[in-house]
C-alpha cells in the first residue's frame, strides 16, 4: 500500500511540477533578486502602505535596533519574513485551486481515466493519494522556497548592516529561530486542512460536471442566494470566505487574532479545538465519499 501511495504521489508531483515546484521557485527567485537589489541600493519599493528601501535605516532606526529586546527583534524578523513569503503562498494557493478543479476533470477530458482505472488501484486510494498530495506534500514542496527566501533576505540585510556600520553581521541571525521552519510547515498543513472542504468541492465538480468551472461556482452561488432569501442569513458565504482565507484569521478564532500577527504552534492547537475545524473535516469526509462514488460511476468523458 505504501509503495502504491508513493508511486501515485510521485505521479502527482511529475504532473504538477510546474504549479508546485517551478512556479513557487521562480517567484522565490524573483523575490530574492528584488531583495538583493534593494540592499544593493539599485531599487526600492515604496507605496502608501508599504515601504521596502534602505532609507528606513536612519540613525533613529539604528538606535531602536540596538535597544530592542530579543523578543521584539524575533517578532519583527518573523513578521518581515512572513510578509516576504506571501507572494509564494498566494502563487501556490492559486495553483491549488486550479489543481483541485482540474485533477479529476483532466483525466476525463483526455480519457486517461480509462487507463488509470485499468490498473488495480481503487478509487478511494486514488482520492486519498490526491488528498495526501494536497495536505501534506504540497506544503513540503513549498517550504524550501520560503527557507531560501528567508536565508537570502537575512544574508542580504546582514551584509548591508555590517557594510554600513548599522549593527553587527550576527544581529539578525541571533533572533532567527530555526524552529520556525517547523512552525511554517505545521502552519501550512493546518491551512490545507482548513481549506480542504473548498478544495474537495472543486475536485467533486471535476469528477461530475461537463463544465467544471461553472459546475463548481453555480451551485454555491445558488445556495448563497437561496440562504439569503429564505433564511435571511449568509452562513454559507461566510463559510466559503473563511475557508479561502488564512486559518489563523478566521471567525472561529478570538477577535484579537484578527490583527496582523505571526501564527504560532499553539495557534494550531487552538484550531484543533474549534468546532469550525471539525465541521470542515466532517464536510471533507462527505465530499471524499462523493468524489469516490462519482469517479467510479461517471462514464461521461465529455469535459469542456
Amino acid at each position, binding site marked *: 500500500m505504501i509503495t502504491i501511495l508513493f*508511486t501515485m504521489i*510521485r505521479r502527482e508531483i511529475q*504532473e504538477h511540477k510546474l504549479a508546485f515546484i517551478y512556479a513557487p521557485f521562480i517567484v522565490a527567485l524573483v523575490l530574492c533578486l528584488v531583495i538583493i537589489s534593494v540592499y544593493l541600493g539599485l531599487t526600492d519599493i515604496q507605496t502608501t502602505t508599504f515601504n521596502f528601501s534602505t532609507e528606513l535605516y536612519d540613525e533613529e532606526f539604528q538606535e531602536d535596533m540596538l535597544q530592542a529586546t530579543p523578543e521584539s527583534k524575533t517578532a519583527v524578523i518573523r513578521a518581515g519574513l512572513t510578509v516576504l513569503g506571501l507572494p509564494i503562498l498566494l502563487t501556490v494557493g492559486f495553483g491549488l485551486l486550479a489543481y483541485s478543479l482540474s485533477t479529476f476533470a483532466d483525466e476525463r477530458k483526455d*480519457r*486517461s481515466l480509462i487507463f488509470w482505472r*485499468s*490498473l*488495480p*488501484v481503487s478509487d478511494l486510494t486514488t482520492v486519498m493519494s490526491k488528498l495526501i498530495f494536497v495536505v501534506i506534500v504540497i506544503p513540503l514542496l513549498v517550504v524550501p522556497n520560503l527557507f531560501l527566501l528567508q536565508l537570502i533576505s537575512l544574508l542580504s540585510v546582514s551584509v548591508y548592516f555590517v557594510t554600513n556600520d548599522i549593527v553587527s553581521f550576527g544581529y539578525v541571525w541571533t533572533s532567527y529561530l530555526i524552529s520556525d521552519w517547523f512552525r511554517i510547515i505545521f502552519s501550512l498543513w493546518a491551512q490545507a486542512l482548513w481549506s480542504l472542504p473548498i478544495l474537495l468541492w472543486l475536485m467533486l465538480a471535476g469528477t461530475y460536471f461537463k463544465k467544471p468551472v461553472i459546475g463548481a461556482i453555480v451551485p454555491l452561488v445558488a445556495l448563497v442566494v437561496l440562504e439569503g432569501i429564505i433564511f435571511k442569513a449568509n452562513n454559507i458565504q461566510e463559510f466559503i470566505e473563511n475557508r479561502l482565507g488564512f486559518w489563523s484569521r478566521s471567525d472561529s478564532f478570538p477577535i484579537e487574532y484578527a490583527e496582523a500577527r505571526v501564527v504560532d504552534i499553539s495557534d494550531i492547537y487552538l484550531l484543533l479545538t474549534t468546532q469550525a475545524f471539525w465541521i470542515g473535516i466532517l464536510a471533507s469526509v462527505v465530499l471524499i465519499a462523493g468524489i469516490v462514488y462519482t469517479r467510479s*460511476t461517471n462514464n461521461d468523458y465529455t469535459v469542456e
Partner: protein
Amino acid sequence: MGNEIVIKANSVKKKYDDNFALDGIDLEVISGQILGFIGPNGAGKSTFLQSVLGLINTEGNLEVLGLDPRKDRHKLLKEVCYITDVAVLPKWMTVNQVLQYVDGVHPSFNLEKCLTILSRTNIKRSSKVRVLSRGMMVQLHLSIVMAIDAKLLVLDEPTLGLDLVYRKEFYSQLIEDYYDGDKTILISTHQVEEIEGVLSDAVFMNQGRVVLHDSIESINKKFLELRPNQDFIEKAKSLRPIHQRLELGREVLLFEDTEIDKLSNLGEVRPPFIADLFMAIMDKTKKEIEA
C-alpha cells in the same frame, strides 16, 4: 487448455433509460479461450466487457475469476488487463514515467520483460506519450499489458483507428508473444476478418442478447457454405439453407447441421467466414422476430 471457469454470467442485464443494453446475458468462459465478441453497434459488446471489468453496475449474477467485479474491481484488476482504446495513455507522461507508474502499482507487472518488448520497437523511453504516433501508442500499451502476468485480457476495439500494418502486428504479437494457452482473451472488434484466425470461440451479440456462442471448431463443423453449380441450385435450395446471398452474381447458401456429403456433390463447400456467418445469423434472427 485449462478448464477453469473465468467468467460466469447469468441473466446479466443493464438498462439505460428505457433500453436494455444487456438483456439477460448467459455466458460461461473457460480459461484458455480466445473469445471474439461480434455484433453491430449498440449490440451490447462494450457494455458487457465493461461489466466484466467492474466499470459499470449490472443486474443479475456475474462472476469473474471467482470475484464480483462490482465489489472487487481493484482486486480483480490484479488478474485482469484491458485495452479499451489505444489513445488513453496519459499524454503528459514520458514512456519511462508510465512504466515506473505501472511498476509501482501493479504487483504482476514485470518491468524487465516490458523493457525487452519495448526494445524491439522504435519507442524511446524518454519520449512523451503525446509525441508517439497512434501505432506506437498501441505498441506501448500492448508492451505494458504483455508484461503483466494476468489471467484475463480484455480488448475492446483495441485497434480502432490504426492502419492495417499496425493492426496485423498487434494481433500477431498478441498471439505469438502473449498467449500461452492458459490465458483467456476477450476481443471485441468490428474488423472481424482480422481476428478470425486468432479466435477459439465466438459470441454473436445483437440488441443486448447472445444470439450465438460456440467454438470456432464447432462452428466450422455446424455451418457450411455452399456455392452450388448452376445445375444444382434448386436442389441445394431444397435442402433448406438458413441463409442465401449473391456473391459476384453467384448464389451462396449457408447450411446449419447439414451433412457435408449431401452438399459436396452440389458444388464448392467450405466453412463460412465469421463475418458472413454473423450476417446470416443476424438476418435469420431478424426474420424470426418478424415472424
